[in-house]
């Protein structure tokens, strides 16, 4: 972690980093979504796909255990020193939205440990449809829902579905089994998302999460272009 006197380089107190995008450091990508939708599986897939080309690390916000962090370690998608787990005090969305201190500490610790870091995935604890990341913590956020939750989910909305930078609808392979209509989900999502992208994927069929990885690469490119 950097020393405390470097904690803040914003001269103007109203110069909100969330509003203008960070000028330096790795791209921080939030991964949110309900329990069981596949956030950890997506994080693991992105680590596998992007790990060879990018210097990356992960922050996990397990609700109770270090299960997600342990999953990533066990599947050896990342070395131990690139995974930080934070406790969220029974309140996972407070930790990513209202008081992001513990997550900022974890991100800064990873940045200090790996000075060349290009990408940090911040995986939230499984929460409901109202959870979203503060842009004080992340640069862009991905909200992950799944087909098994029912094809009504995009229509129900909530900040995760409507305002996330990327909506991922996972487990499309289950659609026939649960009677979910993918076209309905795609159409409803488009209706509430004001042009922001939605990807329908199946991590089972595409364990590399090819499309999501491509979106992350695009975010890195556009930020680089912005600050060039």
């Amino acid at each position, binding site marked *: 972690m950097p020393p405390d006197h470097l904690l*803040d380089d914003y001269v103007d107190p109203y110069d909100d980093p969330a509003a203008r995008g960070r000028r330096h450091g790795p791209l921080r990508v939030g991964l949110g979504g309900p329990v069981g939708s596949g956030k950890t599986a997506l994080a693991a897939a992105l680590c596998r796909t992007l790990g060879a080309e990018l210097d990356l690390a992960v922050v996990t916000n397990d609700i109770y255990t270090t299960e997600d962090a342990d999953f990533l370690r066990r599947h050896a998608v990342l070395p131990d020193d690139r995974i930080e787990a934070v*406790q969220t*005090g*029974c309140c996972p969305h*407070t930790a990513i939205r*209202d008081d992001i*201190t*513990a997550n900022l*500490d974890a991100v800064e610790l990873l940045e200090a440990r790996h000075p060349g870091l290009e990408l940090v995935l911040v995986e939230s604890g499984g929460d409901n449809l109202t959870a979203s990341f503060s842009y004080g913590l992340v640069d862009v956020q991905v909200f992950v829902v799944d087909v098994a939750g029912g094809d009504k989910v995009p229509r129900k909305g909530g900040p995760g579905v409507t305002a996330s930078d990327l909506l991922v609808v996972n487990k499309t392979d289950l659609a026939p089994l649960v009677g979910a209509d993918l076209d309905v989900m795609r159409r409803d999502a488009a209706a509430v998302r004001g042009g922001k992208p939605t990807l329908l994927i199946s991590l089972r069929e595409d364990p590399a999460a090819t499309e999501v990885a491509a979106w992350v690469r695009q975010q890195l490119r556009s930020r680089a272009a912005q600050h060039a």
Partner: protein
Amino acid sequence: MTAALLALADSRLPAGGHTHSGGVEQAIVAGLVHDPRSLEVFLRRRLVTSGAVAAGAAAAAAREGGGAPADRRAGWARIDAETDARTPSPALRRASRQQGRGLVRVGRRAWPAAVWDDLPDRPHHPLALGVAAVAAGLGPDDAARAAAYLAVTGPATAAQRLLAMDPITVATVTARLGDEVDRVAAATSTTSTGISSRTPPGTSPGTSTGVSTGTTDGDGRDPDWLPADTDPLLDLLAEVHADRGDRYFAS
């Protein structure tokens, strides 16, 4: 400057406090806290021990604020060391320094002031609180009050979440401790005159800090020493908690 005090003591100030249970998570596991009455007992024992230590350190830190930069730097480094000595549990030290850093992060921007640069890196939370009070234009008494109050409200909120207690009941328990919070905070302004006036560390035995004139108050306490009240139970709970893989709170 009451509004600044309210902001400093507000549990919604994003300084990371919500991820710490102040020992209450492990106290619940150990069966020591299970209802409003047992919660009140727990909060009381925390208030009069680590709460008193925090209030004393916060007030002492705030007193240093008016000094020349070199003096207050030295004073704050000493208060940090004194707080370490009063916090032998590694888990509690970690929790205190994490929260200190969190408070520095928000405090620097909320109350910009030169004094922040004189703090040691990753200060103990009470020290950061004292400096935040200085930066916000508050005095030592306010710093002590905020420290004592936060010693109660943090674990109270944690218990409410963990036990799904009635929030109104928890608010009542906290309110009932108000007089005791004030008493603990007020005691710090009469006991310690601040350790900064003492001989600095590094001198040889016999002349260094803490050799009092031999005077003590009615309870046998040395008025030259910052409060050092401790509860070994809280140390044990904190260390057992730190070893667990399954926990909601960082401490």
